[in-house]
Structures are given as C-alpha cells and as structure tokens.
C-alpha cells in the first residue's frame, strides 16, 4: 500500500566524501517494498527543492524480527542528495512509496548475476537477500571509479554472494568497466556448456548509469541471456502523473508482445525493464 511518511532519520553513515547510507524510520513502506522498488523523497522541513527525487530502497532494516525502517544509498550530486548527505539523526525526510515495478526474482537452478555500477548498487542488497532466501546462487559484479568507492563488500560476501569487482584505475579487480568481467564470465560459461540442452541458466540484473545498462543489455543479448535493468530518468512524481520519466521501449511491458518503439513512463512501467525491451539511444 502506498504511504507518505515524514520519516525520522535514524542514522546517517557517510561512506566517502560523496556517498552515504541514510536510515529512515518508515517501517510501513519498508515492509511493503519489493526488491527494485523505489521511494520519492524530499526534506520534510523545506519546500526547496519543490519536487521529490527517486531512490531505490537499499536495505530493509530489521531488529528482533520487526521491520524498523529502510536505508537509501545516495551519491551527492544535487540539492536533494546534499540534504541526504548532510542529514543528522532526528531530521525528517518525507518518504513516499513503495513505487514502481520490482525485479522478477529467479529460482534455482537459474543463477542470478547482479551487475552494479557506482550508486547503482542500491537495489541489490534487497534483491540479493530475496534471491538467497530462495536458494538462488547469486553473484555481484560491481564496478566503480576506484576501490575506495566500492562499498558494503563484506555485507554481500558474508551472506554468500560471490563478488566480482572492477575499477577504472584497475587497482581493485578488473581494470575498466564492470562489463569487462561480465563478458569474460559469460564467455567462460558458454565454453563450459556448449550444447543448448545442457546450457546453465543465468538471469542478469543491472543497475547503474544508462550507458552501462546499455552495455550490459548488449552483452547479455550477445550471449543470449535474459536481463532486467533498473533505469533512472528525470522523474517528477513517481506515480505516472507527469509523463516526464519516459523511456522508449519496443516490448509490451510484462508480455512477449512487441510493438514499434514507444515511450512508457519508467516510474510505473519500470523502473525495471527487460534489457531487450529498451530502445537504447
């Protein structure tokens, strides 16, 4: 159920000069959130900025089996992300959600490969937990500019998620974009199971900058693997009211039908799309 909560800031952890994880006391929203869904947030104390901004729910916070709230992973780039970065415990953040179409979660024997670029790590904590709860073997491919911008590695590793890292400076993991190790492992998988019948199944999940999503969708298609990408476009309302966050797709959302390219609202038809449905620029 949709709710708007003036959530108290429980804590705010600055991970780097740009990145932070802010914990918000919005248990009703957290409880209802499925992996890949998002919330629209703004300061509850100021009308500037006017519009809310979308954030994937990063973690659902639990204590003694009770849901306490949710966290957002944020990178400081604009006014709202600066408010989130500077917030202190006790501040109030208006939080509307949960919103959007979640990821489709795969079951064994299908494997899950999550591909994150930078702040695109955000939806993969809840998705990873949901996959593991079903016993799905899960890998996180995670790329950033430098090793200092790779966060929560222990969090994923301690839960049994295999990590494959890439940095642009090459000091941690592969040198280059996260699609470098992704493509290598897809090729290795192909060579291990050459016959179509014995082909092991993989679902690729991706979140990050749009050029990265395009590259992931392209690599996935090249190796004939399905993908789900979580996009972010400039969003006004998050509810389907304003028609600002549109993205061109050719598929009919949620079905096998195809149509000529047309704009759909990424807030309600997405933010999760099949990689092959999106018409990349």
């Amino acid at each position, binding site marked *: 159920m949709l709710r708007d909560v003036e959530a108290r800031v429980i804590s705010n952890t600055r991970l780097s000069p740009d990145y932070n994880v802010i914990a918000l006391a919005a248990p009703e929203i957290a409880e209802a959130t499925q992996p890949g869904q998002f919330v629209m947030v703004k300061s509850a104390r100021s009308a500037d900025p*006017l*519009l809310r901004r979308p954030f994937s729910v990063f973690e659902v916070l639990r204590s003694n089996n009770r849901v306490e709230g949710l966290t957002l992973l944020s990178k400081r780039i604009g006014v709202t992300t600066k408010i989130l970065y500077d917030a202190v415990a006790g501040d109030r953040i208006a939080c509307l959600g949960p919103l959007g179409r979640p990821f489709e979660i795969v079951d064994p024997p299908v494997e899950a490969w999550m591909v994150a670029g930078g702040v695109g790590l955000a939806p993969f904590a809840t998705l990873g937990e949901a996959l593991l709860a079903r016993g799905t073997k899960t890998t996180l491919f995670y790329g950033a500019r430098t090793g200092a911008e790779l966060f929560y590695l222990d969090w994923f590793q301690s839960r049994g998620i295999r990590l494959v890292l890439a940095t642009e400076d090459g000091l941690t993991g592969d040198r280059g974009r996260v699609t470098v190790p992704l493509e290598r492992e897809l090729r290795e998988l192909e060579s291990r199971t050459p016959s179509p019948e014995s082909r092991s199944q993989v679902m690729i999940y991706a979140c990050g900058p749009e050029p990265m999503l395009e590259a992931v969708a392209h690599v996935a298609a090249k190796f004939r693997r399905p993908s789900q990408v979580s996009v972010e476009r*400039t969003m006004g*309302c998050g*509810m389907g009211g304003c028609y*600002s966050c549109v993205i061109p797709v050719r598929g009919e959302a949620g079905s096998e039908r195809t149509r000529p390219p047309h*704009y759909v609202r990424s807030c309600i038809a997405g933010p999760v799309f099949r990689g092959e449905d999106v018409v990349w620029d």
Partner: protein
Amino acid sequence: MGLADLSVQIGALTLKNPLIAASGCFGYGVEYTEAVDLSTLGGVAVKGLFLKPREGHPPERIVETPSGMLNAIGLQGIGVHRFIDEKLPELRRLRATVIVNICGSTLDEYVELARILSDAEGVAALELNISCPNIKEGGITFGCSLHGTFDVVSAVKKVTALPIIPKLTPNVTDVASFARASEDAGADAVSLVNTFLAMAIDVETRRPELSNIVGGLSGPAIRPIAVRMVYECRRAVKIPVIGMGGIASARDALEFIIAGADAVQVGTANFVDPFIWQKLLDGITEYMRRHNISRIGDLVGTIDTTSREKEWISS
C-alpha cells in the same frame, strides 16, 4: 451551523466541491487511486487528448526551477478512442466527475472530439485546451487569438450539450478579454491559467535544459500572477472562473476563491504530495467554520479592496 456546502455549479454540472485535479498533472486519474478516492474530488481533469495517440517530446521533459518547474511533455497520450475504451470504464466505476481536456490541431478536430465524447458515458464536462505552450500545431494558436477562441468555443458548443470550459493561456497581454470572448461564444466557464512559456539553460554545457528548448512554468512561482489574472477575469465575465497556478495549500486555494474563482485546480502540488486532496478539503472546511461561511459560493470574489487609508488622508 450544519455541514458546509462546498458544491459548485458549472453550467448544468454540479461539482461536489471546488477541488479539481489539473489536466496534465494527474495522468488519466486511475494512476492515483492508491492516494485518493477520486469520488471525493470535485472533478478530475484528465490528461489532454487528441483524436489520435501521440508520443510527445523526447526527454528531458521537465526541469525544476526556483519554486516551480518547467515542462515540455508534448501531450503524449493514448488518443480519445483508447481513453474511452481503456480508462473511462474505470473512472465510471470509481465514480469520478470526469472533465476531459481536449486538444486539436484544427477547429474540426475539436468538434470531432466533442462529438465523440458527448456520446461516451461518464464524461461530465469538456475542457478545451487552447493554451498548451509546448506544441506547435493548433491549440495555442486558437488561445492567442480572440477570434480563434470565439470560433472554437462556439463550434464546440454547437455539437455538445456538455458544459465546456476553455482553458486559457496567460501568455497574452489581456487574459480577461479572452475570458470575455469565451463567454460571448457560449462557454459555461473558463479555467486559467495554463503554464507560462519559459526556458532554462545549463550554463556549463550551454544547452537548454529541455529537449523542446522552451516549456511551461508551473508551481508556486506563478501563483501571484495567476491570482491577479483570475481577479481580472472575475471582473470581466459572469460565467464561473476556475482558477489555478501554484496552489499548494488550502490557504492558496482560498486566495484564488477570494480573488474570484468558483473552483480551483491543483497540478504541480499533486506531484509533490499525492495525498494533498484531503488536506486541502479539511483546510477549506476549517476556514469556512472559522469565518462562519456556510456556502463556499458565498466566499467567491469577496476580496475587500476598500482603502483603509481613507480617513487618514481626509483628516
């Protein structure tokens, strides 16, 4: 004192209260059912419809500016036939008072849309979009000419018994004369203002923020100008005036009503807070109780412009 009477008369149509969701800011209404019971609204003005589906402009379609936003969506929409087949049955089921906003490239298209919608079940009124600043063809060319406004209103009036409400642009020198042209042509009400033509530039890249280069400014930034325009129109016409422009609270809605609006539309604020409607209704009711006003109609246009300085000057 009994329950406050919030009802508003627009031609033959009675709205149960003066709060209308503004066209272009509320999708087709059905998107908002998790936030608001549509039957509790005075009206739902659905997203502007052409005869045929339209894709609209490429992104970027919006950008935030101080206390407001620019948009150039380009009237993306499903067209009137899919609206009647896919959205109207749901709106009927939800018992929404549906005001269909129609857009044409030619006078004949407005007439055709009015004919089609007059035959559809569950349409309460037509709002004529002659004021969208974001598309080249039609619409605004009618809305920026007194003859064009008169012609489109009278042509539509001939083919429908539905109340018709031309939506006026503020991008003219004298908006009141357009209200008068609408009234002369037989409009049942006028709604104003649509957005102000505006633009914003990213100085680092020197590129316009919107793909369409220019767009329409809405939000609290425009409210004082919109209030002034509603005030001018109230003095120019007898038909109901539906005011809008940056309303974000009950106080703002009351400001428009006191300036002369019989009803108000809320757009941008619904993006920020889709739960705003009950807060607006509660705030207006509370104000009426505090000021001992039993009918909202009794508040319309009650602005007191008598000078308080008189005695001091004469003494």
